[in-house]
């Protein structure tokens, strides 16, 4: 039963995580500004809350599932080193694509 949930892919790469965070913050802040102005105009604070909740729902939909746009920069893993006793640190084949550490 639990293995069913564990098999659902949830992974985002690092750039995707940053993008997801920027997207949900942007959506919620924009919906907050819109909701505040609209609520101030019609003098109903309830509508402000509803609009922020709508922004919350939209950003849940956009940033919780690992959509393909969050998986465009996968980490270039080194190839599996052959089990050789003589060489402790085998060099990777191509260094050009290695991701820079932050």
């Amino acid at each position: 039963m639990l293995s069913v949930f564990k098999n659902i892919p949830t992974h985002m790469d690092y750039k995707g995580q940053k993008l997801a965070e920027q997207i949900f913050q942007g959506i919620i802040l924009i919906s907050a500004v819109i909701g505040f102005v609209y609520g101030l105009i019609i003098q109903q604070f309830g509508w402000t809350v509803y609009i922020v909740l709508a922004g919350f729902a939209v950003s849940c939909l956009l940033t919780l599932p690992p959509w393909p746009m969050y998986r465009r920069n996968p980490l270039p893993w080194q190839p599996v080193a052959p089990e050789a006793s003589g060489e402790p640190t085998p060099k990777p084949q191509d260094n050009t694509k290695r991701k820079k550490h932050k």
Partner: protein
Amino acid sequence: MNTVLSRANSLFAFSLSVMAALTFGCFVTTAFKDRRVPVDIHVSKVMLKNVDDFTGPRERSDLGFITFDILADLEPIFDWNVKQLFLYLSAEYATKSNSLNQVVLWDRIILRGDNTKLNLRDMKSKYFFFDDGNGLRANKNITMTLSWNVVPNAGILPLVAGSGHVSLPFPEQYETTKSY
């Protein structure tokens, strides 16, 4: 570790913080508003009795019955930070034993969306107008004021006295009705 749950958690926390900031903004936009409106109170009839006050010492106390009209438009009070108004009519007067007596005679809750035009005719008081002695008879100056609590969505709970009150003298004898 970035998982669905950790993303959901940060999303929820951020939304909650933004909502709190908006609520504070709602409070700020209405914090300095003047919530007084003109109120027209008219007392048409006053009756005075001297009855046993069973709650206090076994003496007879003054009990007043008043009939009043209230005319007010409360529309300017309501804005997006007001949930309801608690109106109450109070009588203020001075006696020999107390320099200030305040008795609440009547109240009403006006919810947001209710009719804000108050046009009440020949209302009886809801609560007993008991003095704690014999201070009502021949009292020259009894002042009726309509005040209200503004119940907000967020922020302070202001207590506002309506501008416009009526002062009247009470009858000289018991069991008599005085019309104004």
